[in-house]
């Protein structure tokens, strides 16, 4: 006791880092957001004005102070490029759970392991720093690529919300997936410390 046991920074990986979003990210964000296909996979079908994004970035300060939501920019390490964002939101401190949301806006940066590593970092943050017991996420049934990544990282399907998502005239199911702190430690931290 008394010696600190480092398991590695939850903010810096090998390909990406997580950092708070700043208002200076606004121009870059406007370049990469509002991509119709990317957003459709994240079940967000609306596009946003610069003013809306500015208000959103500003609102993150208050949410972080209230500990209801922590949102981070995902930035590549090789050329310091902002490619998306990741959050733990709907934080419930009594039951100790949160909901993960992630989006890689830049289409040239998908399928390169950036998102996967960002999620792993956020899991480290949630279980190692925030002391959560359970982390859940929602994913549309048609987002097979994301489901594959989530499964690989240890998330399990825990529910299917039938016809929860309406898109272009059709309804799609939404999956709830989750991972418990013991499962995270078993898969990602065993043998990693010391």
């Amino acid at each position, binding site marked *: 006791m008394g010696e600190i046991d480092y398991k590695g920074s939850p903010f810096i990986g090998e390909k990406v880092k997580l950092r708070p979003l700043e208002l200076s990210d606004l121009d870059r964000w406007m370049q990469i957001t509002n991509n119709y296909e990317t957003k459709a996979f994240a079940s967000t079908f609306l596009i946003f004005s610069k003013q809306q994004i500015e208000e959103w970035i500003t609102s993150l300060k208050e949410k972080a102070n209230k500990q209801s939501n922590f949102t981070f920019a995902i930035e590549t390490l090789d050329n310091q490029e902002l490619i998306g964002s990741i959050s733990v939101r709907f934080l419930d*401190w009594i039951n100790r759970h949160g909901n993960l949301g992630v989006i890689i806006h830049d289409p040239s940066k998908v399928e390169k392991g950036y998102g996967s590593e960002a999620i792993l970092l956020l899991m480290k943050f949630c279980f190692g720093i*925030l*002391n959560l017991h359970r982390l859940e996420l929602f994913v549309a049934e048609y987002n097979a690529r994301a489901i594959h990544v989530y499964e690989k990282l240890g998330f399990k399907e825990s529910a299917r919300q039938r016809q929860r998502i309406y898109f272009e005239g059709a309804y799609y199911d939404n999956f709830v997936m989750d991972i418990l702190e013991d499962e995270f430690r078993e898969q990602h931290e065993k043998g990693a410390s010391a």
Partner: protein
Amino acid sequence: MGEITFKGNPFVGETVRLRPYEQSDVEHIMEHWNTYNSRRFLGPFTPHSSLQEEDFIKSQSKWANEKKAFGFAITEKHTGEFLGGTGCHEIDWINRSTTVGIAIHNPENHEKGYGSDALRCMLKFCFNILNLNRVELGVYDFNSRAIHVYEKVGFKHIGRKRDDIFFEGSYYDHMLMDILRDEFLEMSQGK
């Protein structure tokens, strides 16, 4: 799995009942709490106006909504008589730690076990409902009656802030005590 296990209502003890404060409690608070004799054990030593006490009760609802603090009136289990207050504040949700406070206002109600009972209710609330890991409290070193109760309920001494309290020309130490979740659960099992 799937069956709920009740371990006892934290709001009902053997002799007391905890309920949210209401504005109608102000008159009782003014009667016995706002006396120099009572306040010298908890501070601040300056009496509050009823307007300040009204604000205190309003802020309780606000803090409960924000999950920053939970304060309850302590009432006599059968008669409903207002006895005092207890609460947990400075809740730290990441480290799962909080600080509790308790007071039985009317000296005539002291030494009757109300305080210990209410404090045990509060600990049940903190550990079984709020899912906290640690509960701390501070007590002035001249408040030996309270220290005895805290020890009996299971709090351990962890240190003292020296000369932290200035009262009537002298400095007194502020004792710190705490109890951990596992210690509380072990004690409750034996009961």
